[in-house]
């Protein structure tokens, strides 16, 4: 057996500690396939990436109540405004969290609320504009204590 010097010992240790990270990353993968839900929201029309921003803390230590803010770039005039915003979750048992209906009277296409999140995931928001186009955006949230799992 070769002599285990300090350098080699350290590199083996580092290698071992990296091992559990591999399955951990796989566990973060989305559980819900949002494609059919988004297709239903947009009635089959293309949904483009952009104009929608989801702001959340990147690390939420309590999945039972995660604050979030959805904003859509829009002048919010009678001719050009946001009609609705749908909020979707990658991992919640019910993927559609909420739908908000707005109009030109809103003045600003921003909605804030608090949601439950079943674990680390990506949140998606899909906005319908008055011209019939659909835009989407999202945010990644790390949830340390997820909702839904405990019976409390």
């Amino acid at each position, binding site marked *: 057996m070769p002599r285990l010097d300090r350098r080699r010992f350290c590199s083996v240790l580092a290698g071992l500690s990296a091992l559990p990270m591999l399955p951990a990353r796989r566990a973060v993968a989305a559980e819900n396939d949002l494609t059919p839900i988004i297709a239903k929201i947009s009635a089959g029309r293309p949904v483009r990436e952009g104009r929608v921003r989801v702001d959340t803390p990147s690390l939420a230590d309590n999945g039972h109540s995660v604050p979030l803010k959805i904003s859509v770039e829009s002048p919010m005039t009678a001719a050009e405004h946001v009609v609705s915003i749908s909020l979707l979750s990658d991992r919640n048992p019910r993927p559609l969290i*909420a739908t908000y209906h707005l109009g030109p009277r809103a003045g600003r296409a921003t909605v804030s609320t608090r949601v*439950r999140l079943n674990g680390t995931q990506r949140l998606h928001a899909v906005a319908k504009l008055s011209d019939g186009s659909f835009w989407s955006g999202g945010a990644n949230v790390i949830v340390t204590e997820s909702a839904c799992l405990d019976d409390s």
Partner: protein
Amino acid sequence: MIARVQVPREAKRGEIIVIRIAIQHKMETGYRLDNFGKPIPKNVINELVCRYDGVEIFRAEMGSGVAANPFLEFFTVAEASGEIVFEWIDDAGERGAERASIKVHG
């Protein structure tokens, strides 16, 4: 159901104002069990409507993914003095309402 609404008392005409509402409600997900192991039925506020002088300015359809004691913040343009009325209903059919008045200058 107890609710708290926050609307500015006064505003200038055309000003974009913040509206906030928080309602005391468990927003029962339907996934929890009671002490006897029986599932507690889902009961969430599924719809909330906000009207400004009778005109709908905001509507939310919510599910079990909304945190308990739902909180919402959104914007509206102060158009005229009047009443901002919120109405909501939960899965059990229980309704709630809350109102606030605003004075608009100019």
